[in-house]
Structure formats: structure tokens, C-alpha cells
């Protein structure tokens, strides 16, 4: 099982918190799409297995016209073996999702929309500098639900001044509209973002992690009531609606990342393209892949298995650890986990090391403690 990620590095405007790679200048959009098409052709022999998932991420892929999307989908199908019923996701912004656009999208092979709602309230959206407003968020979602079965929305919590009540309201709107999948994450301050800058200058308040923790708790409880399964720390899906593409990241499957800043994994090494549109286009035009490669060491692979496994409902299979890394490493892992097991922050069930409810919001530090570093 393999996946293809295609990064569309353009946005209408920059959200204050975002540190993904994108440009707000659309001047070179056409050239970029050609280059992405070329990269898809250049790398057609890299994937050994059939393609089961395709994911258009960004940036804002919904900025692309139907023809542009169709052009890229065609190239994938011409150059790769795609299975009968692949999962093909498009990240979309509510303001791009007009009724006409949704209908056109539904007519392509795209069968899953990931809509960047973030919040159903205008003040939150303004705080984050989102392009769309609350009305567009609800309107586009309603329309999309009508034409697509498989839909996920993004919701951000821990936004300053967002009360617990308002957060509940946000969630309830999603539940009422019967969205089958929610990706929900705490507002996070990344370096070199406007948000970081505003907080440093005192223009924005610092984030309150107690608030974020309360919101997280509400999220976990409310989504459970509405029959969502928290299959990853930030991902909640109804039965049959888990993201196949994202799951493949967490389960160590191979994927190809196409477009500037996109990451690839082939089971042995990780590579990533340059995060610069001009340099990306120039390199691809010369038939050169603008990428850096990191060959994973045994420790790297172990640490990644811990880091990603801990975040998911599937946990870390101790048998797999023993098979891949040997019994000594398995024993070291169990030994390092002792304190957490005692405090019921971790548990072992059916041969799997899992994080408990209590530990979920502390997963990073726990993963780091279980790492093996020289």
C-alpha cells in the first residue's frame, strides 16, 4: 500500500498561525502545476506498490481550477498503478467551495474533502486571519455534505477568549451537520509565524494551555458521545471514515511527496523537496529533484515507531518491536515505560503499548522519554 501526497503551495492570504510552505503570489501557478506534473512523471518508478491514496494538501489546493486538478489526476493515473477504489482527498477552503465548484469536484475522481473550517465563529476566524467567515463555513459544508459522503473538517481549539461553551458550540454544529470525521488540534505557536511575533510584541495574548487542555477534554468526551473514534490524538472518525492516507503516515507505510516542501518515505530513507517555489520549478525544469535525503538509522526508525505509534489507537506492537529491533530493544522499551505504566499513563493491552486517556495530552514528552538516543 502506497500513497501520493501533492503539495499545492499557494494561498490567498496567510493565516497567522501557519508555518507550512506556501506563497500568496499566484503569478507562477501555471508553471508550478506543470512542474508538479513533471515531478510525478520523473518519480513514477519510485513506488513499488499500487497507489491506494492520493492527497492534495497545501497551501490551498482548492485554489486550483477543475482543469488543473484533472490534469494532475490524469498524470497520476497515466504513470502509476492506482487501485480500483482509491481514497482521493482534496484540502479545501470554505470560500472556494461554491455550489458549482463542489459539483465539478464531485464529478472528478476526488472522493473525499478536507475542509478547513477551523471555527464556526467570526471572531475566531478573524483572530486567525482566515479568508472565510462563519457563514461561508456553514454554507460550504452543507453543500459539500450533499455531494460528498466522505468529508472531514478541521477545527482549532485553545484560541484565546474561546470559552468552553463556545468550543462545545463549535463541536455541536459539526455534530448536527453529521460530519463523519473531524481533525481537531490546539492552536500552536510556531516559530516565524505572525502569531509568534504578535505574542512576543504583546499584541496578542499568550496561549493558555489549561484552556487548551479543557478543550481537549471536551473534544474527547463530546466526540465519543457522538460515536466518533479517536483513532489518533487529533483525529476523530466514525466507523469506516478514518483517513487512509494519514493513517499510512502513522503506520510507517511508503509515500511519495510531490511539490515544494513535500516529504517522502520509502521505508529506508526520508526525503523532502526544497521549500521554495522558484527553486523547485527551476530544478524540476532541469529534470533534477530538488530534494534532501536522510537515511534512517536503527535508532531513528525505532524512535519514529514510538512517536507515531503512541499517537494512534493501534499503539506500539511489542511483537513488531521485537521482530524489527530485537528482544533487547523491546526489553529496554518496557523498562523505560515502567514508571508510566505504574502511573497509568501508559498501558499494555493485547501485546500493544498504548497511551491512556490520562497521558494523551502529554504524548510528546512521553515519546521522548521512550526514545533511544546516543
Amino acid at each position, binding site marked *: 500500500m502506497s500513497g501520493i501526497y501533492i503539495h499545492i503551495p499557494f494561498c490567498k492570504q496567510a493565516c497567522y498561525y501557519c508555518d507550512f510552505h506556501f506563497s500568496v503570489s499566484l503569478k507562477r501557478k501555471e508553471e508550478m502545476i506543470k512542474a508538479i506534473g513533471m515531478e510525478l512523471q520523473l518519480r513514477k518508478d519510485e513506488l513499488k506498490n499500487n497507489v491506494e491514496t492520493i492527497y492534495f494538501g497545501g497551501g490551498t489546493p482548492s485554489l486550483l481550477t477543475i482543469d488543473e486538478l484533472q490534469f494532475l489526476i490524469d498524470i497520476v493515473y497515466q504513470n502509476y498503478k492506482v487501485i480500483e477504489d482509491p481514497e482521493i482527498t482534496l484540502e479545501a477552503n470554505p470560500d472556494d467551495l461554491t455550489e458549482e465548484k463542489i459539483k465539478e469536484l464531485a464529478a472528478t475522481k476526488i472522493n473525499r474533502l478536507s475542509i478547513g473550517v477551523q471555527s464556526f465563529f467570526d471572531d475566531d476566524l478573524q483572530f486567525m486571519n482566515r479568508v472565510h467567515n462563519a457563514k461561508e463555513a456553514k454554507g460550504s459544508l452543507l453543500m459539500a455534505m450533499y455531494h460528498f459522503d466522505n468529508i472531514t473538517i478541521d477545527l482549532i481549539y485553545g484560541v484565546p477568549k474561546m470559552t468552553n461553551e463556545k468550543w462545545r458550540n463549535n463541536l455541536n454544529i459539526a455534530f448536527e451537520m453529521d460530519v463523519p470525521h473531524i481533525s481537531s488540534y490546539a492552536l500552536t505557536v510556531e516559530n516565524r509565524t505572525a502569531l509568534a511575533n504578535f505574542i512576543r510584541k504583546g499584541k496578542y495574548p499568550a496561549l493558555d494551555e489549561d484552556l487548551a487542555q479543557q478543550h481537549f477534554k471536551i473534544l474527547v468526551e463530546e466526540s465519543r458521545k457522538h460515536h466518533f473514534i479517536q483513532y489518533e490524538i487529533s483525529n476523530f472518525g466514525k466507523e469506516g471514515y478514518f483517513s487512509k492516507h494519514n493513517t499510512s*503516515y502513522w503506520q510507517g507505510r511508503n509515500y511519495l511527496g510531490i511539490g515544494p516542501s513535500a516529504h517522502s518515505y520509502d521505508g529506508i530513507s526520508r526525503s523532502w523537496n526544497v521549500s521554495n517555489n522558484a527553486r523547485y520549478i527551476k530544478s524540476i525544469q532541469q529534470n533534477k529533484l530538488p530534494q534532501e535525503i536522510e537515511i534512517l538509522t536503527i535508532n531513528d526508525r525505532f524512535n519514529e515507531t514510538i512517536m507515531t505509534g503512541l499517537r494512534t489507537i493501534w499503539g506500539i506492537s511489542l511483537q513488531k518491536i521485537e521482530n524489527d529491533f530485537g528482544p533487547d530493544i523491546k526489553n529496554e522499551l518496557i523498562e523505560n515505560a515502567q514508571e508510566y505504566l505504574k502511573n497509568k499513563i501508559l498501558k499494555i493491552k493485547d501485546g500493544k503499548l498504548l497511551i491512556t486517556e490520562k497521558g494523551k*495530552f502529554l504524548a510528546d514528552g512521553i515519546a521522548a522519554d521512550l526514545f533511544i*538516543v546516543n
Partner: protein
Amino acid sequence: MKNIRNFSIIAHIDHGKSTLADRLLELTNTITNREKQDQLLDTMDLERERGITIKSHAVQMEYTYKGEVYILNLIDTPGHVDFSYEVSRSIAACEGALLIVDAAQSIQAQTISNLYLALENDLEIIPILNKVDLPSANPEEVTDDIVDLLGCDPEEIIHASGKTGFGVEEILEAIIERIPAPKGDVNAPLQALIFDSVYNSYRGVETYFRVFNGDIKKGQHIKFVATGNDYFADEVGTLKLNQIPRKSIKAGDVGYLITGIKTASEIKVGDTITDADNPTKNMVEGFEDVKPMVFAGIYPVDTEDYEELRSSMEKLKLNDASLVFVPESSAALGFGFRCGFLGMLHLEIIQERLEREFDMTVITTVPNVSYHAFTNKKPNEIILVNNPSDLPEPSTLNRVEEPFIKASIITKSEFVGPVMSLCIEKRGEITHQTYLTTERVELNFDMPLSEIVFDFYDRLKTVSKGYASFDYHPIGLRESKLVRVDILLNGQLVDALSALLHTDNAYGIGKKICEKLRKLIPRQQFDIPIQAAIGAKIIARETIKALRKDVTAKCYGGDITRKRKLLEKQKKGKKRMRQVGNVQIPQQAFMAVLKLND
């Protein structure tokens, strides 16, 4: 002998000593272009990086002047108050000194104290106004300062620039013309002054000396007067950029000696070398057994590395005789060493050298000075307190004496107020205030040495906006009121964080220590109370709130690498922390008390 000149350089840090020395070496062809690099004499990486000289160095140059060849011995000296004894011995080995003054910054306290040392030793002073090419140079005013200080003629001051090489030839001429040739009797019994020693892992300890009388020959049976040890001179020679072996080094000259000595501590700077069979009656004056001023515990971060730390410390001691250490143990940190240092810079240097040269990550505990305690039972018997835990129980304590220093601070007149407030806060008593010029004031204080250890330099720099220089020398012990302030983390006493403080400051500093630790100790999955206590009495309390959120909500696209590296870094950071009870304490927290006002 008439064609030998021995000189040192007196300069404040950053006034351009090392660069000017480099130019002298170039002009006398002591180094070729190929060997050229900055701060040539500072051989330790640490010296180059920090731009300071830690060890004394010596180098011999040859220069032809008016048809005659002259031997010029430059003895480079350390430029920090921690090493003032070494400076005094280097000065004693010379007849002259270059006084280098930055044309923009004028004379600093360190320069003055070393200058006085040179004048006491009857050295001929050649004043040099350096960095005259700088736009901020103020030659007229600084010339006045120098004239005031030395009582010299303005014409005697040489204008120079180490950067461009301007004035360097004039300096060489002045060295020959103005500095007197050494005097001495080649036929008298050998009398030579040791001004430094350097450890070489292949050849043992190399001793640097200046011969005053007689000569020292290869193979000679010699004796060190102060230590009483005798050796055979396996090799003697001249210090060019490399060592050049010679048959003998005669009165007036400078050289090196190799005897097969394996540990630096066997050689005492300031000691006199003489002939074992025909010894001199006169030791060179001014010898002192250098005593450590500051004490701190050094512990391995990982308790299993104790033996490795011991062997690293022993190796360090081979080339740093002023480092002393004895094993000690701490309830919190396990086994380690109580170490004595010449001062805070020396402590930092040792800690850094352990990390760089021996790859040892260590925890240094709160430094303290050496107190004398007396109990009621035996009120005349000194109990040496080099560690807070050595202080006898308050109920049995008769009195405590603490070391005092005389501090000299030179600053601009506009900063006199803030500098005085700082010194008074630090329990200083002003003894003198002298206007060197209308702009520049010298202030003298009697102060407890311990106050210098606790964040004095940094604060002096802050209150004077950098325009203050500082020097001190010890003036003995005085009675004082001391208490031990203990720190408890999560209810558990961490002995390595205990500090001896003056009673009047104990509450204030105890509170600040708690606040500082709250910032330095990373949050953990539970609340951690921090308490300061005197005996059973809690005097301050802070709480490190439990970590509530430690998760990146979004796992970036397929970018697993970035997050993995972030967490790996976090794990490595944790490995460098010390677990006491169930609290992880980072290295720098143990030194927190020193930087309370950051």
C-alpha cells in the same frame, strides 16, 4: 647580556595586546607567513575564542638595530584578576613593560594594578596608545590620562595600531633604547625564577624560567628552592615559536627546562631554580604558595562516570597546578569532588575544559569561599568551611570569619552613584575615592570576597553600562554572621543547592533562588514545590506548575523527521539533567544562585 631585553605587556582585556604581540612577531620574522594566525601566543582554543590569555607564554625574538642583533624576550601574561599572582611573577622576570592602552577606552583598573606591580619591580614602562586608527579613538584625552598616571612626557607615548601595524617598528626601537639590559653575574651560583610551566603529554612538564645569575646547563644537577626537589636538566633551550634546545641559558636570558617531571603541581610558579651542589643563598623574592579562593563541587551528570571524572580531573591537574580537589559526596548528587579555584573565571575554564577536552558533562554546585568557623567548645580551633555542609550546627557555633578583599573600581564619574550603591548592597565599605581625571574615578572598597562570587561582575557591568573595571586583592578574614540556606525540591533537601549567606541577605536571596529555580527547572507531570529553609524554618516558597499540555496536536503532513528530531533533542537535554528524587534538574540550575538578577 647587553643585547638582551626582557619585557612583558600590560593591557586590559580587548585593548589589543595579543594582536600587537602578533605584529611584533611578524616584524622580527619570528614567524613566517605560513604560521600566521590570530592570537598566536594564545595556544588554547579557549583563549582564542574568548580573546583572553589564560596561561603565561614566552617567546624570543631577534631584531637587528643599528647593525647589532638584539635578543628580545617577550613574556606574555594572563589578563584576568584570577591570575594576578602569575602576572606578578612574569613581571618580576622582566626589566621593562609595554603599557598598552586602548585609545578609545583609556586606562582600566586591571591595567593600573598591574602597572603598579611593574613600577614596584622598577620596570621601565613604555606607554603605547593602541588602536589609534579607530574612529572612536580619543588620543588627546587618553594621552592626558597616561601622563597623569605615569608622570611621563606626552612624547614618550607611542601611537600604534596592532591592526594595521602602524607604530610597531617604533615600539621595537623603544624596547631596545629605553629598557635596560639585564644585570647579573654569569659566574655566580645559578639563580633563576620560574614564571610558568606548561604540561606536554610527551615530554612532561616544561618549566619556563628567567636566569638572574649564573647559568643553567643541559645535564646540570639542579634544585628547586621552595619545594626542595632536585632534578637533572634533561634539556634546556630557547623559546622561539618552537623550542630550540641549547647547551646552556645564561644570566639575563629566558628559557625552558625539561626534567621529566610528570605533574604540574610539582612545580611552583615563583620558585627559584639553583644548582644542587652550589646553591644560591638568595631565593628570588616574592614567592607565594597560591591558595584557591573559590570552592565548588564538581559532579558527573551520570553517577556512573565518577571514575572517568576522577581520571579527567587528574589529567587536568597535570597541566593546571592551581586546581585542587578532594573527593566528596552529596546526598543529592552522589560522588564527586570539592574543588578549589583561583576565582570564578578559573572555575568556568575548568568546567569548560572538562567538557571540551575530556567530553565530561559535569554539574558544578554553588561556589563558596573558604570560611573559618569556631565552636563554643573549642573557640580557638579553626574549622575550615569549604562546603556549606561543613558549617557547624548554629547552636554549637561560636563565630565565623569570612575572607575580605580590597576592591579597586575605576569608572566614569557619572556612574559613581550606582557603583557605590551596588558595593554597599554587597556589604562593601568605601575606603577611598580618588579622581584620576575629572572624568574618571577610582573607588576603593573593603568587601567580603563571597559577594564577588555572587553575580558581582555582571551587575557592575550593568550599573556602569560597561564603563567600570575591577580588581581586588585579599586582606584577611573578618568576623561575620553567616547562615546556611537550604533548598528543598518536592519536600526533599538538595544539599548541592545549599548556600552560605550573610544573615541580613538570607531572606532576600533565598526568595530569589526559589524564583530562579522555578524558571530553570522544566515543568514535569506533577507540581513541584521549591522551598528555601534556614534550619527547619521555611523562608520562601515557589511552585513549578505541572505540565498540562505536551503534545503537538498536528503531526505535520508527512514530515516525521522534524518532529522526531525535536523530541530527540528534548531527550538529549533530559539526559544532561540530574534526577534528584523524582525531579529532573538541569545543570545550570545548580549555578542559579550566581545569576539571580538576570
